[in-house]
């Protein structure tokens, strides 16, 4: 793979663009918000994504996947960003799917993966316990009881946690290490509280009180810490690609506005002060694309250097966070008064940017991860 899309990726990009433009334009996302749809996405649109193979892209053929490689997600998430399309692809397939793929036994995989790939069921990852993503902090206790475990504690900011068919819950095992548990919806002692976010997507808090689970609920056929980190890095790269797609759309929209909006008898885009600011947005967008492409390239040759993957994924999420913050703020400012109205789509993008920035790691955390790799050399 290189730092530009190959033919297959380009085809995925084109097909994702066509599909989302037809089935999930920004107006559809706006309607979901206005109707207050609890799960935050359109099941029909999600099923269509499954039929296009998006949930199968990175899985091996023997698991029912397309064996395309993880790089297929770069163009898909870029287009999800462009169209602002909500779907449980990140939560269920990228995050939970990656954990199941790495940590589940053959039987557990058989029970979970086909359901997940077919979209018949969707899972959400219950990891965070703090308002800022601090993935290594975990106090939710798993106590050994009889042949199984009892879980007690709570999780917050579970993306797509509302109306999920189940959750993968990260808990502290009796030996002090972390474990990943499969907790199906309807398990006694589990309660879900929706959190209404600025991006109107699906977010939940999860409370687990004396939740009894059989031993088979624990996914422990691999190195949990390594698997968690890898799954989160995959998720971070997807979010970076989504943010990049948002940057592209916001920049295009803003440049178009600068060309057409007339003030002082001239298109405002002819004013040098605005031209230079717009040019700097383009620079940041291009730098972000460099980093995102490099992160996916590193993820696709994962047999290689884990340190390289960590470094480049942290770089991509950091740069995409930074670029999206700048471009979304400037998009509002350059649109002037109309930029702060709900009528314009820019506000919807701005709000999604802030949530995606925070998800799986704000810029400071990404810079710290990057530093740990760079300075260790």
């Amino acid at each position, binding site marked *: 793979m290189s730092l530009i899309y190959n033919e297959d990726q380009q085809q995925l990009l084109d097909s994702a663009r066509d599909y989302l433009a037809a089935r999930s334009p920004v107006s559809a996302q706006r309607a979901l918000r206005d109707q207050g749809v609890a799960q935050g996405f359109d099941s029909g649109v999600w099923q269509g994504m499954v039929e296009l193979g998006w949930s199968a892209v990175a899985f091996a053929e023997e698991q029912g996947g397309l064996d395309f490689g993880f790089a297929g997600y770069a163009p898909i998430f870029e287009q999800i960003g462009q169209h602002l399309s909500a779907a449980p692809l990140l939560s269920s397939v990228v995050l939970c799917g990656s954990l199941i793929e790495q940590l589940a036994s053959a039987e557990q995989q058989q029970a979970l993966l086909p359901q997940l790939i077919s979209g018949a069921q969707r899972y959400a990852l219950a990891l965070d316990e703090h308002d800022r993503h601090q993935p290594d902090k975990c106090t939710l206790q798993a106590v050994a009881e009889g042949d199984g475990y009892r879980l007690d504690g709570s999780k917050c900011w579970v993306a797509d946690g509302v109306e999920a068919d189940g959750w993968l819950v990260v808990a502290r095992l009796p030996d002090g290490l972390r474990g990943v548990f499969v907790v199906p919806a309807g398990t006694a002692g589990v309660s879900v509280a929706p959190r209404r976010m600025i991006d109107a997507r699906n977010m939940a808090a999860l409370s687990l009180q004396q939740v009894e689970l059989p031993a088979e609920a624990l996914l422990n056929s691999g190195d949990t810490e390594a698997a968690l980190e890898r799954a989160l890095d995959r998720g971070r790269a997807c979010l970076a690609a989504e943010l990049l797609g948002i940057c592209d759309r916001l920049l295009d929209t803003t440049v178009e506005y600068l*060309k057409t909006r007339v003030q002082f008898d001239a298109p405002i885009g002819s004013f*040098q002060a605005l*031209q230079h600011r717009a040019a700097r947005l383009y*620079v940041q967008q291009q730098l972000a694309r*460099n*980093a995102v492409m490099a992160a996916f390239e590193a993820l696709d040759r994962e047999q290689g250097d884990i340190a390289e993957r960590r470094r480049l994924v942290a770089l991509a999420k950091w740069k995409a966070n930074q670029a999206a913050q700048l471009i979304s703020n400037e998009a509002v400012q350059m649109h002037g008064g109309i930029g702060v109205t709900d009528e314009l789509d820019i506000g919807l993008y701005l709000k999604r940017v802030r949530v995606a920035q925070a998800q799986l790691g704000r810029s400071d955390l990404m*810079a710290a991860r*990057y530093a740990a790799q760079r*300075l260790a*050399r």
Partner: protein
Amino acid sequence: MNELDAFRAETRAWLEANCPASMRTPMPSDEMVWGGSTVQFNSEDQRLWFERMREKGWFCPDWPTEYGGAGLDVRRQAILDQEMRRLHCRPPQINLGIWMLGPVLLEYASEEQKQRFLPPMARGEVRWCQGFSEPNAGSDLASLRTSAVLDGDHYVINGTKIWTSYGNKSDWMYALVRTGPMVPKQQGISLIVLDMHSPGVSVSPIDLISGKSSFCQVFFDNVRVPADQLIGEVNDGWKLGKALLQHERRAMSRFSESALPTHFDLDEYLTRCLPSPEGAAELALQQRAIRCLMDEECYSLGNRRMVDAVSARQDVSGLMAISKLVHTEQERDKFELLLELLGNAALGWDGDGFAARDLELTNSWLMSFAQTIAGGSSEVQLNVIAKRVLGLPDAK
């Protein structure tokens, strides 16, 4: 892919066998080799490395073989670059003719001119300087006034050029001159090449805030230049000049390469000056430095993306347009950080108590201000991006 792998293996083996060990070390500025009629070597290794690279045609690896190049495609050229960087090979010579004028001659010069000027350039026998800027033109380059008037089979040149790097040490100059005074300013300009030893040429160096500099002002007093040294069509020089400036931007971003004395590795200074940061101030400084390193890596990944895109025949004009701006601004930011990391040790001018390399750093910091102005200021670069890449309208 196999052929490329084979080329990589051959290249690596050749460099390992032919690049002397002393040419794989960081290069102090007094050990830069400048191609030209009076090329000087400080050591036998410098001479060997120069001659071996010359014989391979690797002074200009991408040029056709008939003009002294090695005929490498973009992939192979990138491999050669990578392998040289991997071994920390010094550039065998610095040569503005090859980096900037050569590609323009290849595209626009007559066959006769190519035969005459390219092979000596490719052998590193001529040192070239650039005569574009003028004292009152600045970023408005097209308003230049140095005139070339046809008199028989010669042009007679009068006027002055400024910011001519190494004008005092160069053999030849490529200059933009006004050949059509009565037409709109971009339409009356031509590109001409001339011998710096011609009667009527005089040169005086310019001191900068960094001290003595390579920049000069050049004066022309009825300098007679044979008419067949005009490149391309008369009054069509603006197009050639713009093409040349694109190559200049690329050449300027080459000045970051780690083998050059102007390159300072922030990682290295971070490890040296903040080995184990303590307290809020040191941690804050380290965090700023990390962000600087991250931006630098985002930029250099763009160079890789550009190679991939060129190989796939994709349009890279957008990436090229941001390259000079991003690189020179990042370098300036990096020097500001290096200054903070080194403290007062980076604020020495000369004399005892300062490491030579640190004095060089101070000098490079002061020069970094020139880099965001020379070769088209950052503001000119932003204009180019706004107008040519984003298509924003001209002011009325």
